[in-house]
């Protein structure tokens, strides 16, 4: 009897619509984030994360409506990331019904913002998204750096030092995405996940690279993550969240079923 490891489906939302394709045969509108979130909830998702990839700030209000709609119908934790830059942004999302916000680049440009956010709303709702890429050569010890702009711009910041700094500033959780693995379907960068998970006390969510169900269990067992995040394996109906949990359970991982 103990804490279950979590599975978190992630939806990319552009202008109020789910993008990168979600296909369910028996869903009315697979582009509607509310419909998709309800489906994942029914399948037993432990939380749902929305990543707002809307390019223009004019359309940001759309995401607020999405969160309001989902939060009145889905009663599991909801996280919203993308474009969270100020205390006002956070307040708006929490008031709409989000439980946590994921802060990414704003933390890099202004680490003081992390502390400000944690002081204002509590650590429990502040997730720091860390996008990291391996920068060491094969004959060196592993080393990862924080990248911005979807993995294109290096920052020179060491990923592990950054994770520890975010914990010190009050972050409640870390969402660690390998930019080397994101979209590859080759599995998590387990060495990265483990290096960060072992260097902080707060929970780590592994992200980036899930292509098969086995990858999820690897993230927990080898990556030492508390939770695993995936998008495409659930979107295309390849696997349900429940199937993913059963596969994890077969590996001896405690899950909520």
């Amino acid at each position, binding site marked *: 009897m103990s804490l279950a490891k979590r599975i978190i489906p992630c939806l990319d939302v552009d202008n109020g619509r789910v993008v990168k394709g979600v296909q369910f045969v028996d869903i009315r509108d697979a582009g509607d984030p509310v419909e998709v979130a309800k489906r994942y909830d029914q399948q037993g998702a432990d939380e749902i994360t929305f990543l707002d990839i809307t390019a223009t700030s004019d359309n940001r209000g759309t995401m607020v409506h999405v969160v309001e709609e989902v939060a009145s119908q889905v009663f599991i*934790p909801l996280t919203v990331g993308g474009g969270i830059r100020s205390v006002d942004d956070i307040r708006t999302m929490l008031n709409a019904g989000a*439980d946590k916000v994921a802060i990414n680049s704003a933390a890099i440009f202004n680490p003081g913002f992390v502390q400000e956010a944690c002081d204002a709303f509590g650590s429990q709702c502040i997730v720091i998204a860390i996008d990291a890429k391996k920068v060491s050569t094969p004959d060196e010890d592993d080393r990862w750096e924080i990248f911005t702009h979807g993995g294109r711009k290096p920052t020179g910041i060491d990923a592990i030092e950054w994770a520890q700094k975010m914990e010190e500033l009050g972050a409640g959780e870390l969402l660690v995405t390998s930019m080397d693995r994101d979209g590859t379907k080759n599995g998590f960068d387990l060495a990265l996940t483990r290096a960060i998970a072992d260097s902080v006390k707060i929970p780590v969510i592994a992200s980036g690279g899930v292509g098969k169900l086995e990858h999820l269990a690897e993230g927990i067992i080898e990556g030492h993550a508390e939770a695993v995040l995936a998008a495409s394996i659930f979107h295309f109906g390849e696997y349900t969240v429940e199937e993913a949990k059963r596969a994890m359970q077969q590996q001896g991982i405690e899950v909520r079923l």
Partner: protein
Amino acid sequence: MSSRKQIAVVDYGMGNLRSVAKAAEHVAGDLAEVTVTQDPQVVHNADAIIFPGQGAAKACMQALIDTGLEHAVQQAAQEKPFLGICMGLQVLFSHSEENEGVDCLNILPGTVTQFQLEDPSLKIPHMGWNQVHQTQDHPLWHKIPQDSRFYFVHSYYVQPKHSDIISGQTTHGTSFTSAVAQDNLFAIQAHPEKSAEVGLQLFTNFIQWNGQ
């Protein structure tokens, strides 16, 4: 005036009240009207009280005092169906270790202490879905299966002075009290508003509860 049961969600500026209100409204139907309020008079007049809370103990206690809700909450906790959630459980106790020590509402004797876990693989905050073992029968556990998983997020837990008020226990490295019940009062460390079916069932039970 409506004859529906009036349920007040106490808003002292700490926590995701909207989530709590939405979950309660979702199951209330025609039975009850759910109002989020900062007004001590509304708390006083309501038939039942939901007392949520998030954040640090010190900030929560300060907010209760600043909003003038401290006395109304204390009184409600003695006399009508009262549901404390998360920090709304912790501040019911005498004292919390958080923020170098904070005196709390002292409705229930006992203290609030931080997780000290030797196993480095156990993370703090205790975040996610864990089992609540029901240690006594209670109307609020109606139709909720034994050892159901609820969603938790916290770094501190309550240690009641009197074990007869313990209604639920959970294990995270150590076994701790995750729910308490005394007369008209029930309080839970987990977030029923984020605990899917079992959480909604708990709200349904609360709305139907007469406080006995």
